[in-house]
């Protein structure tokens, strides 16, 4: 191929990317399609990372979901619900250890991520509770979950199933024992994406 040919293809490629970006921008105010909503939550500064689901034992009808939500925007954002393709019922829960007894309770008001802060969902604490599983969740599987925020819309996020959630590269043992559940900084949210479809 000639240099001129390469040059023309490059121009065509950048033109098509440009048109695609304009298209995304035009569809964003509608907030109707998941992709548009995701773009909106991403635009609002929300970043999800370390998204994991606990692998389930055969016969076990429940599991938990974990992630790090970073709000790099200037407005607080509230996660109100989550839906998963394998779960009949999904709730947001927190748990506390009290004299050796693990006590779990539902977060009826959802979870607010303050502007400029991160919120950790991890084993032993805040988590997404999946109930009425219609299948066994196996190590290595990936599922797309819809995280619904009351203001910016829905983020479609890819979660990975693992037998030992919260022990990957993004959560050291120090993180697990650290009781500060919200903290400043954005260095953590490296692989955050608001996935469209």
């Amino acid at each position, binding site marked *: 191929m000639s240099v001129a040919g390469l040059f023309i293809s490059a121009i065509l490629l950048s033109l098509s990317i440009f048109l695609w970006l304009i298209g995304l921008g035009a569809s964003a105010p509608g907030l109707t399609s998941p992709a548009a909503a995701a773009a909106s939550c991403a635009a609002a500064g929300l970043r999800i990372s370390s998204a994991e689901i606990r692998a389930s034992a055969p*016969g*076990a009808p429940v599991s938990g979901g974990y992630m790090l939500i970073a709000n790099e925007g200037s407005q607080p954002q509230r996660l109100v619900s989550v839906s998963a393709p394998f779960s009949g019922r999904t709730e947001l829960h927190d748990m506390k250890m009290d004299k*050796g007894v693990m*006590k*779990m309770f539902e977060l009826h008001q959802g979870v607010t991520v303050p502007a400029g802060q991160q919120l950790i969902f991890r084993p032993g604490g805040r988590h997404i509770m999946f109930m009425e599983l219609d299948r066994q969740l196996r190590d290595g599987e990936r599922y797309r979950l819809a995280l619904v925020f009351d203001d910016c819309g829905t983020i479609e996020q890819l979660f990975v199933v693992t037998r030992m959630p919260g022990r990957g590269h993004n959560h050291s*043992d120090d993180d697990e024992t650290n009781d500060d559940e919200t903290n400043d900084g954005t260095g953590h949210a490296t692989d955050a994406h608001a996935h469209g479809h």
Partner: protein
Amino acid sequence: MRRTALITAVFVICLAGAFALSEYLARQYYPQPVQPVRLGAAFSLTAHDGSAVTEQLLGSRPSALFFGFTHCPEVCPTTLNDLSVLREQIQQAGGDFQIVFVTLDPLRDTQDVLAQYIPYFGSGITGITGPEGEIHALARAWGVFWQKNNITPEGYNIDHTATVFLLDETGSFKGTIDFHESRDIALMKLKRLTKLAL
């Protein structure tokens, strides 16, 4: 001369008083001999493989005993996973112990359910279920707390003691592993339980 004797006497009396006082205070804080802890009770229940199981199971070799339920979202699978990994480490070091899981939810955790659930976490684990009254009697004998919560038409959760009980090969209580303890400490405890060099 008399004066010297008087001073000496007062000095000796003060010394004796100080000694008696310090001895009294020291004895107040002296460690008391520990009473052997009596935990557990005889039982006759069903193992996940359908066989009958009694307290003799706990007298056969060192054990890690844990109470839970299969609808348990986190503590139970995490504990079973961790214990299974620890058991592999102990086995590599030349020791062994068994893992015993007693359900606190026998109405939902029938033998069939446990037969599916238990082997997923590895070998060397015995799941135990049976009539609710007898399960609850066993849990009480181990000082285990449990309470249903989040009760809805669709189901319920059970808050429960998340402690792992460590028993020696005679079935005597030797200590515990706490849910939030580091794995290194848990490994040390299990090495001591299985009489391995630390």
